[in-house]
């Protein structure tokens, strides 16, 4: 008896999968688009192999001083990981370039840099200052302030090395000076790969776009009369829905597996630390997406009616939930708003497991909320869905 119920569900699912396999546009949307977008975004972050940017920060430098000290300063900057790009036309030209967004930051080495430097070290100018003006792009202040820190360090070293050379006694004192150590404490998840950064959002966004298909297939069958035909058979409504949702669930699982596969192969996605957790998160995400699709199907009479609406709705959810734009870029209030989307909780779970290397146990609350979303969607949808 039970076996038969399951077999009937399976035959509905298998039929839908078969129909889907013959639906070229559905296949492109379900598999082609995510794959292409994953590659595009993955490769935007530099090269796939190292998984992090190389070559240092590009910083515009207007060098107005031909002296030796300017040369040494540039050498120190390079050592510190800055890639100075010479700019002609002086400080004014540099400011224009930065304002135009060409570089995140720029440095000016003024004409009297070497002179002032030597004067300061030899004590001739008392405690006279040496200047290297810094120009930051107001649109990219975070990167700019990082660059400023690095440049400041490089300048420190430039001064220190010259002081040591000129005042060996002081040098001994310098070498023996106490130090404040800042040992690196390794935080798990450091060194994110492009896969780690982009795939959680993509896996969530694309799985939720399944909802569109769920709604379409249900309304389509009702319109075509095949739903009624199934209702005429000795099977229950729950079986029909279960079968249809199972088919979409399989589709979602294949899609997720495909993205993970691409992530591992080309984008250095880290999954080894939590394979079970990722699998459970994927299943919960698919469940909740199917529930959402079923609920959306209750808001229109025909497939055409809701198709446009749901596409826009899913895109909107994608943006506010942080799956399409990193949540760190969203304003505070939007981050709060994003928590009303199931996407956000799925993203939390994936990020915990993939980026922060949390355990499954510690991200269970996220998965729980996600499942709760799914259950509420299903409950509402079943109460509202018209089979006839």
């Amino acid at each position, binding site marked *: 008896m039970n076996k038969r119920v399951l077999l009937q569900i399976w*035959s509905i699912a298998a*039929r839908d999968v078969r129909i889907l396999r*013959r639906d070229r546009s559905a296949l492109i949307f379900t598999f082609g688009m995510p794959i292409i977008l994953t590659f595009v975004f993955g490769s935007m972050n530099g090269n796939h192999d190292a998984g992090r940017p190389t070559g240092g920060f590009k910083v515009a430098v207007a060098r107005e001083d031909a002296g030796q000290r300017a040369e040494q300063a540039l050498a120190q900057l390079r050592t510190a990981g800055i890639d100075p790009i010479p700019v002609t036309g002086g400080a004014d030209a540099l400011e224009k370039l930065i304002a135009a967004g060409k570089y995140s930051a720029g440095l000016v080495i003024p004409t009297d840099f070497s002179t002032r430097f030597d004067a300061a070290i030899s004590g001739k100018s008392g405690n006279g200052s040496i200047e290297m003006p810094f120009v930051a792009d107001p649109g990219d202040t975070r990167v700019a302030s990082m660059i400023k820190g690095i440049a400041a360090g490089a300048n420190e070293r430039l001064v220190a090395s010259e002081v040591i050379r000129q005042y060996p006694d002081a040098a001994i004192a310098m070498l023996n000076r106490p130090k404040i150590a800042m040992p690196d404490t390794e935080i798990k998840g450091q060194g994110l790969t492009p896969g780690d950064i982009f795939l959680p959002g993509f896996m969530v966004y694309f799985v939720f776009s399944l909802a569109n298909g769920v709604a379409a297939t249900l309304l389509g069958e009702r319109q*075509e*009369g095949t739903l*009624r035909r199934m209702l*005429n058979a000795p*099977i229950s409504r729950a079986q029909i829905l279960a079968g249809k949702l199972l088919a979409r669930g399989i589709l979602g699982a294949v899609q997720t597996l495909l993205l993970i596969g691409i992530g591992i192969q080309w984008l250095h996605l880290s999954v080894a630390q939590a394979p079970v957790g990722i699998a459970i998160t994927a299943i919960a995400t698919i469940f909740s997406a199917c529930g959402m699709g079923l609920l959306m199907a209750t808001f229109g009479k025909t497939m055409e009616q809701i198709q446009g609406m749901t596409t826009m709705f899913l895109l909107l959810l994608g943006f506010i939930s942080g799956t399409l734009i990193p949540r760190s870029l969203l304003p505070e209030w939007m981050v709060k708003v994003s928590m009303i989307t199931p996407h956000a909780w799925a993203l939390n779970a994936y990020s915990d497991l993939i980026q922060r290397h949390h355990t499954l146990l510690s991200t269970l609350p996220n998965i729980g909320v996600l499942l709760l979303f799914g259950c509420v969607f299903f409950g509402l949808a079943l109460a509202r869905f018209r089979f006839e």
Partner: protein
Amino acid sequence: MVPTQNPTAALITVNGLRKNFDSLTAVDGVSFEIRQGEVFGLLGPNGAGKTTTISMLSGTLQPTAGTVNMAGVPEGPERRRALGIVPQDLAIYLKLTARENLEFFGGLYGLHGEALKRRAIELLEMVGLSERADSRSVDFSGGMKRRLNLAIGLMHSPRLLLLDEPTVGVDPQSRNHIFEGVKRLNSEGLTVLYTSHYMEEVEALCHRVGIMDRGRLIACDSVKNLIATLGGSVVHAEIGPLSPDNAMQEEVALAALQARLSAIEHCSEAEILPAEPRQDIAGSEENPHIVKVRTDAPGRVLPTLVSAISAAGAPLYSLSLREPNLEDVFLELTGKSLRD
């Protein structure tokens, strides 16, 4: 040819069935029975409530009032297994092949393995789709889709087949396939409810017919009995004027002819109606008449009629005899034609 069976035991009994859609009463207190082994026809114009009635029979639509009883089969899964439904609107998966459609729906009814495959082949054969069994049905002609639609309803070998206008918009070849298929199935013992607004089909196929109009069942009997209620064939005779030059004499002569006609034996109804004015041989206008007589024994009535007309001194222009059909029954009952 109407099959000669005499079914008696009721398989389905419908009692006081009613369905309201908001303010519209689609089915209005309909009662009838479908007997074991018969083909029962439901005839009616568009919007009569045929499909709504079928939906309530099959359990897909909840009646507002009334009951549907099936002998020995309680409502629920068992009833659904006993019924085969062929919906008026195609209900097939266009992306699946004919065979896949059949096997899918057969599977829902619990068929599987070899039995499922064999049954699908059998039905493909029956509806003449064997050669296209593995083509996707999206590529089928309208008639082929209809045949597949029919076959799906038969996959699980139901006891009662509910056919909702299975031949609408179908080419003659497909129509024949469907028609012959239903006949054969019925001769093998399948009970059929056949819905149509083609009265020729219903006349040729159905043992008994229910006529529906505006949600009501206005007649229900065998085709023969229904037609018999009309009182037989209709004879039309077109005659010239009796006394062309004198209107008063014409009146008198007509009254005399009417009296003679009414006296003819086996004649249930006789009337004289004005016909379209026409030109006589000389080119002047004249006012002919139509004599309309209804009879159940046209062979005997015709000679008497002709001699009565000539005795009245009227020229006989034409004479026609028409056998009545269900169309006339419908016209008689509702005052309108079945097809408008």
